[in-house]
């Protein structure tokens, strides 16, 4: 029984650690903030969940299991909040590769940017407005 529990715990730990490596690879390889965030939230939910399950199997005692469950529940609660905040700020600061987007429901019809420049201040004017005039 203990051997089986150990094997199960090791399987969970290895899966979680592999997800952590996957997150690092995605962070390095992906092109813009939104896709990097997509890669970076994988260990935040599933990887941490698997690692916590493995650690709760290995560490005996209910106190440790409850505290690890608290960490997992906290990750489940806070990952969507921080992802939503970061993606909203990224969109408003025009930090989105628009040529890579398939659907952009927030895009206005008349004003759009030509180039992906990265950091722009929140009150920067749009690069091109509806009449075809170049912005400031």
């Amino acid at each position, binding site marked *: 029984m203990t051997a089986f529990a150990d094997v199960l715990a090791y399987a969970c730990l*290895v899966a979680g650690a592999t997800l952590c490596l*996957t997150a*690092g690879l995605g962070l390095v390889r992906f092109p813009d903030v939104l896709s990097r*965030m997509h890669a970076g939230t994988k260990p935040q939910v599933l990887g*941490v969940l698997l690692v916590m399950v493995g*650690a709760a199997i290995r560490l005996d005692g209910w106190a440790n299991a409850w505290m690890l469950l608290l960490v997992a529940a*906290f990750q489940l609660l*806070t990952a969507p909040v921080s992802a939503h905040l970061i993606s909203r*700020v990224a969109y408003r600061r025009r930090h989105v590769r628009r040529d890579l987007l398939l659907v952009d429901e927030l895009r206005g019809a008349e004003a759009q940017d030509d180039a992906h420049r990265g950091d722009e201040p929140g009150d920067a004017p749009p690069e091109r407005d509806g009449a075809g005039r170049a912005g400031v």
Partner: protein
Amino acid sequence: MIAVDAVLYALIGGGALLCLVRLVRGPSLLDRVVATDTLLVIIAAGLAVHAALVRDPTLVPVLVVVSLLAFVGSVSVARYVGGMLLRASTDDGRDVGLPVAAEEREGRS
């Protein structure tokens, strides 16, 4: 099981190193925010793996603190980046306040 331990530490260390690469190279502040968030989560996972491998429950409360810190840090820096402005004040000395969101500006023009 020693080989499996080494593989676990190598996987988590590799993920953390790649996050550090993005943290150094990241072209903008938001990339660095995402990389920092992911790095802290990977550190929490590494602490949990270490605690599980040596069967040492002393590190478990640290995990709660690290995960709280990751959330608060990323959210506060994201709010700060969203409030950064081109000009610090208007010409007549008033504070400009919060910036107009890009969506609203596009709707008005």
